[in-house]
């Protein structure tokens, strides 16, 4: 099981006003707000914590957790500049965040039996449907290379809950992955069993 989340920092600066009244209270617990207020760069801290919550939530859904909207249900604690933990009720997972000046990419890190592949790429357009298609294509391209399958026979489908899965010639493959796109960036995380490589 795996979850990831990408934040385009320029895009989020334009489109989300975290300073509006009530925003921090809806999203973050008191201890998380403490981290933000003590940070020398509150903006980056906010979106790092946010992306950690999103990555954890996606992993939680893959484990069969029930959907919810309220980000404050996900509790984050930080270990250092890169690592932290997320907790949703009984579910807990370690999260890694990579950041540059332009984006933050957070992903769950949960298995020793797998190689984890994390990729970030720029997208050409900002229309949500086009971006989603571009992100799918990047993921399929990577699976084609790493699993040595013909790219044109790989497709991404969705089950009735909207959860995506990969098919090779209409047959579902047991590959765990998570995709995300935001602003001008797309990203995926992918697990590959060690024995297969």
């Amino acid at each position: 099981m795996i979850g990831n989340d990408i934040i385009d920092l320029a895009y989020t600066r334009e489109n989300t006003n975290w300073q509006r009244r009530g925003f921090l209270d809806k999203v973050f617990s008191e201890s998380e707000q403490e981290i933000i207020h003590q940070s020398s760069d509150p903006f980056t801290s906010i979106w790092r914590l946010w992306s950690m919550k999103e990555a954890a939530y996606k992993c939680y859904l893959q484990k069969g957790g029930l959907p919810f909207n309220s980000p404050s249900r996900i509790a984050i604690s930080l270990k250092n500049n890169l690592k932290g933990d997320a907790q949703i009720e009984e579910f807990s997972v370690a999260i890694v965040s990579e950041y540059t000046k332009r984006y933050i990419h957070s992903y769950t890190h949960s298995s020793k039996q797998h190689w984890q592949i994390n990729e970030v790429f720029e997208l050409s357009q900002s229309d949500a449907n086009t971006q989603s298609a571009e992100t799918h294509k990047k993921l399929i391209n990577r699976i084609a290379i790493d699993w040595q399958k013909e790219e044109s026979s790989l497709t991404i489908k969705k089950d009735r809950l909207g959860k995506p899965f990969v098919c090779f010639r209409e047959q579902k493959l047991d590959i765990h992955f998570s995709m995300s796109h935001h602003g001008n960036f797309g990203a995926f995380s992918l697990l590959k069993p060690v024995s297969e490589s």
Partner: protein
Amino acid sequence: MDKEALIAELKEIIKPYVQDQEAFGKLTEDTHFITDLKINSANLVDIVLDTEDKYNIEIDNDSMDKMSDVKSAMGVIEEKIAAKG
């Protein structure tokens, strides 16, 4: 408040955050904010805050969790307005 008026008001609230205009054009009570309108989760928080401001109500976590589609959002608004008395 009658249903048509409430849908119209709700459409005004969510409009700035919609990423799929085609789905927005075909909006019904069953339209889902994330899967149909492709609204991102940060903007979902904005929608909750805008709704609180517009109706002068407070939407707690449990109610926020219910606000996944047009119908359930209307339910939450109606319930909170009624609770104000």
